[in-house]
Structure formats: structure tokens, C-alpha cells
């Protein structure tokens, strides 16, 4: 059906925003693909041939894998806990940090993990160590910071699916003699799988695009793609390199999320049709 002119006018502001984003994406692609001598893949060849850039690329994806795995492993029991508690206040407490800027939350971790921070003060006070141990400006710091920021998202994804699982299936399996582990692995986990996959996809995507947390809690020797783009853009003013890194980041994100989306289709097909 065609739209009336009035309806089209109502859509215009949102269309304008979409077109603006499109313009930005296009300009980014243009700057990375088009050099002085016409269309070229030089910027990408440069990225792939630079040892540091490739190591940043691999490190970023390793971090995304690690952070998504930790988030799922922590968020699943947390979601079960929240469903058992039957109390909105707990859910609110988990969601509350979403209202606090990530730069503030990351700063909070600097106060906890820093050389004169809470953990080191406690360890030295108790006489366990004499010199502060290094908890940030390394991979540990970034993982803690990112896991902390993304747990609410992961928990919410799993919670939505888990809370809809039909309890009678669980009780039925138990009544028929299935042990707790068997109930979990054959009933609960498969039914909650769409939530787990959604959580993993969201956290993966958020981690590889992260800028602030790797910048503040990570080491300068081992950057992530986000902090490398920040560095190229705002410290060394190398727009073309930052641009091609951003495009490689987006393409590799799509490639990494694809298997999860396929798995989601497969899982959803295997699940029994929803009974109402």
C-alpha cells in the first residue's frame, strides 16, 4: 500500500535521522576505500600488514569471547535468583547501574582496583602483600570493568526467557525421576537457550565496540579496537586508519554474531511451539 502525503510527512523527521546516519556511514566507507589514486584497499592492506593492528584485532575478539562467557555464566544463576526472589526491588537494584554513566562506573573500579584503592588497602592492611598488586591497566581490570557494565543486559535477556519457562515441565521431569542436573540440562537449559544466545550476542557486540573502559582500565601496550580507534582519532589524528579500523570492527562483529544468530534459529525451531 502507498502512503498518503500526510503520513509521509510524519515519517520525515525519523527518515532524516536515518539518512544522516547513512551519510556518516557512507563518508566513513569513502574515506577508507577511496585514496588519492581512486578506489583502493590500501587502508585495509595496511591494517592487515601491521602486526600491532592485527594483535589488537585478535585481542579484542578474545576479550569479547571471554567477557560474554563470564557474563552468561554469572547472569544465568543471577536470573534464577531474581525469579525465585519474586521481588521487583532486586531487579531494580540490578538495573540501577544502567542509569549511571559508564565513565562514572569505570571510575568506581579505578577507585577499587587502583594501587591506593580499596582492595590493595585491604590486602596491605591485612599484611597479605607489602606492595600494591597490579589489578588495573591490564586485562584483569578491563574484564572486571566490562563484565560489570554488561551483566545487567545479560541478566535481563536471560531473565525474560527464564521467567516464561513452564514450571510444570520442570516438576513433571522431577516427578518422573530426573535428577536436578538432568532437569537442568534437558529441560531448563534448552528452554532458556534463546535468552542465553541473546545475552551472548549483546555482550559480544558491546565488548568489541567498547572505548571508555579499555581506555581507562586497560594497558597502553595492549589496546582494544575501540581504544585504538580513540587513540588514532584523538591522539595521533590519523582519520583514515581509524576509519578502516571502524569498518573492520563492524564487519568482524557481523561475522562473529552470525553463528549465534544461526544457532538461535536452530534452537527456536527445535523448541516445541509455544502453548498459550
Amino acid at each position, binding site marked *: *500500500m*502507498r*502512503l498518503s502525503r500526510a*503520513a509521509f510527512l*510524519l*515519517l520525515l*523527521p*525519523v*527518515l532524516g*535521522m*536515518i539518512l544522516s*546516519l547513512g*551519510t*556518516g*556511514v557512507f563518508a*566513513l566507507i569513502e*574515506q577508507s576505500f577511496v585514496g588519492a589514486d581512486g578506489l583502493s584497499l590500501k587502508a585495509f592492506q595496511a591494517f592487515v600488514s601491521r602486526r600491532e593492528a592485527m594483535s589488537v584485532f585478535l585481542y579484542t575478539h578474545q576479550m569479547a569471547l571471554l567477557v560474554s562467557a563470564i557474563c552468561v555464566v*554469572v547472569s544465568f*544463576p543471577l536470573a534464577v*535468583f531474581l525469579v*525465585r526472589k519474586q521481588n521487583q526491588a*532486586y531487579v*531494580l537494584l*540490578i538495573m*540501577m*547501574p*544502567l*542509569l*549511571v*554513566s559508564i565513565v*562514572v562506573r*569505570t*571510575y*568506581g*573500579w579505578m*577507585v*577499587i582496583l*587502583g594501587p*591506593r584503592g*580499596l582492595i590493595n*588497602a585491604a590486602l596491605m592492611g591485612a599484611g597479605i602483600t607489602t606492595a600494591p598488586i597490579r589489578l588495573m591497566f591490564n586485562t584483569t581490570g578491563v574484564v572486571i570493568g566490562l563484565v*560489570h557494565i554488561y*551483566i545487567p543486559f545479560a541478566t535481563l535477556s536471560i531473565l525474560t526467557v527464564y521467567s516464561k519457562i513452564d514450571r510444570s515441565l520442570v516438576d513433571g521431569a522431577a516427578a518422573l525421576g530426573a535428577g*536436578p542436573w538432568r532437569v537442568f540440562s534437558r529441560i531448563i537449559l534448552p528452554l532458556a537457550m534463546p535468552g542465553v544466545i541473546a545475552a551472548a550476542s*549483546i555482550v559480544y*557486540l558491546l565488548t568489541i*565496540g*567498547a*572505548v*571508555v573502559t579499555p*581506555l*581507562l582500565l586497560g594497558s597502553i601496550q595492549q589496546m582494544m579496537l*575501540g581504544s585504538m*580507534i580513540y587513540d588514532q*582519532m584523538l591522539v595521533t589524528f590519523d582519520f583514515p586508519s581509524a*576509519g578502516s579500523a*571502524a569498518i573492520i*570492527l*563492524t564487519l568482524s*562483529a557481523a561475522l562473529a554474531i552470525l553463528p549465534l544468530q544461526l544457532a538461535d534459529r536452530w534452537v527456536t525451531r527445535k523448541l516445541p511451539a509455544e502453548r498459550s
Partner: protein
Amino acid sequence: MRTRSLVLSLFGYAALVFILAPIVIVVIASFSPARYMEFPPPSLSLRWYREVLGSSDWLGAFGSSIVLAFCVATATTAACFLAALVTTRRRFVGKSLLEMLVQAPLLLPNAALAMALLALLVQIKGRGTLGGLWIAHCILVMPFVYRPLVNGLRQFDLGLEEAAMTLGSPPLRTFRLITLPAIKPSLITAFAFSFIISFDEVTASVFLVGVNYTTLPVKILSDIQSDATPAIAAVSTLLMLLTMTFVTIVSRMVGIGRVIGSRSGH
């Protein structure tokens, strides 16, 4: 069975402590009198609050952020509301494509989205200006605003509109007296959350601000990188206090359930 649920509860409370720890720590650290950040603070004082509230740099950045967030929330809520009016009532070619493109900012990794917005602002010469950041933030916030508004409009019974019109009410009057009041909670929620997202945004903004124009979260970020005094903790605490007050007011107005629900579309 007992031990298992005990283990689960312990885990749940531990996770809660983990999630709230950095926020609580920042609040405590903000009362430190020390020149450099250390935890626990040696004693308690309001030194850094006085410093922050007397600093034109901090107040200026705060003002910029408030103005920006207000413009972003107003424009995005209005734009997405108009679009949602069409997409919830009309079927047309390209509708699903449009709805997918509205979600596009969520599908791009943040660093890449920031670069695309930067490329846009360079083209339109808007880098480091209120206008430029306004456009960029509207794009960033759009997916979060559109979804709750569509959900709100879907729940609205079109029969009420039809009834009013059958009874002789002209379209604009119907809209003002029937549609708008019914959809008001969704509009308030959309406004409030686009305000907060824009006000807290730092990942993209740090690429987009300029020498003469900066926002509060970006100033916090650059201060952490340069001198990292407890002033940052004081600013952060004030920021959280403000957000919490704002959310409390909004949730009193529309009900807390709606407030959580709208943020879950992330």
C-alpha cells in the same frame, strides 16, 4: 535441596554487591579531603563539593549537558512519536525496512557508530558544536525511544478514536482529547530515558566534542586521564543524585514497571 538454594542465594547477594560496589565506592570517595584519590578516605570533608560547585568549568559542562539532553529528548520523542503514529496504523511498502533502520544504531559496535557520527559531523561542519552533538545524540537515542512508543501506541484502542469521530469530534480534537492522554505515560517515559541516555553518553561524545564545547561525562573522562582528583567522585555523586531524583519523579508519574521495561530494550 536446602544447600543448593542457599548457594544460589549467596551467589545472588554476592552478584548484587559486585554490581553496586563501584557506585557506592564513588559516593564514599567523594567525601575525601585528600588531594589524590585513595580509598578508604583518611577523613571526611566536603572540600571537593565546594571545589566543584565553585568551578565555572564544571558548571559550564553541566549546563551544556542539560541543554543538549533537553534538546535531544524533545526532538527524538517528537520525531519517533510521529513515525510511530504512522507505522502502527498504516501498512506500506518498506515499513519493515524502516523499522530495521531505526534500530541500526544498536547494531553497529559503539566505536564504529562514533566514527560514523564523527564522519557525518565533519561533513556538515558540526563537530564541537551544540547543533552537531544534538543531531548525533538524536540518532544514538532513536532506537530506545521508538520501541516504547510503538508498544504504547499498539496497546491503545483505536476504537476509542473511531467512537469519538463517529460522535462528530474533528480529527485534531480527537487526537488532543483521546489519543494524547492515553499515550502520555509512554511519551513521558520516552522523554525521560532519552534525556538520561543523552546526559550520560560518553563513548560517541568524546569523538564529537570540541575545544569550546564539551559535555559533563566527557569532562569527567578527560579529568580522570589528566589529574584524577576526588572532584571527579563529587561530580559523579551529584550526577547520580540528579538522575535518581529525576527517575523517582518520572516513575511516580507513570509507574515503576514501565520505567524498567523501557530500558530493557537495550
